[in-house]
């Protein structure tokens, strides 16, 4: 590669954060987090193949306060990546490219993922008598 004195874009240190750029990088961050989450999922699913004791140990681990906290993070990541993924699919078919629409759908994704996470955990939180 030639000497890397070429300008890079965007200059993050002078780049004003916008809903579009924040949502964009969060899509990657949540995606990487969820990819890591597949390994936790694998642990949970495979534990059942080792019998009742191993499965109930993994269930207890996920049901501990730390496990629930991690699951809460994954719930948000999944809802966010899910909603913004649908936003991406609309772009893929050429819809929703107007700047105003892009900003509005960006906010919709942010609000949906926060609200859906809260609703999920309020309704299904074990210590509130849910599932």
């Amino acid at each position, binding site marked *: 590669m030639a000497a890397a004195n070429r300008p890079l874009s965007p200059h993050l240190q002078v780049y004003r954060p916008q809903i579009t750029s924040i949502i964009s990088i969060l899509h990657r961050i949540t995606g990487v987090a969820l990819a890591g989450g597949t390994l936790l999922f694998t642990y949970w699913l495979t534990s059942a193949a080792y019998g009742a004791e191993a*499965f109930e140990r993994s269930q207890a681990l996920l049901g501990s306060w730390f496990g629930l906290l991690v699951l809460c993070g994954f719930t948000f990541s999944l809802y966010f990546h899910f909603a913004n993924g649908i936003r991406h699919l609309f772009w893929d078919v050429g819809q929703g490219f107007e700047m105003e629409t892009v900003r509005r759908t960006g906010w919709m994704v942010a609000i949906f993922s926060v609200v859906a996470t809260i609703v*999920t955990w309020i309704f299904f939180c074990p210590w509130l008598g849910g599932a």
Partner: protein
Amino acid sequence: MEMQSHLARARGLGSTKHGVGHWWAQRLTAVALIPLSLWAVASAISLGGADYATYHAWISELGNLVLMLCFVTALFHHAQLGMQVVIEDYVHGETAKVTLLIATKFIAIIGAFSCIVAALKVALSG
């Protein structure tokens, strides 16, 4: 002297018709994961705190087993495609990049097979 036209030279060199393979697979798995991930969330909620017998009964239902295998397949395929893009974008050293790409693919394959075999083992056990 160059005797070929630009078009003739380009033909067969590029990724013609294959370049969209990654893009298409990522979208296909994304579309599949829309219903599958909702099902997975609902299932996870219903299995919260469940004991082994409850899980065994759940995964033994044919519909749940099939959806679980579909979910796992789409999930790991989608995850490794996405990780590939992220690694290619941010890891610039060739050795580190290729090493991470290979590790990602291997981990995805091992994870997917582990999930599939584990789900089948419990579902098909008496």
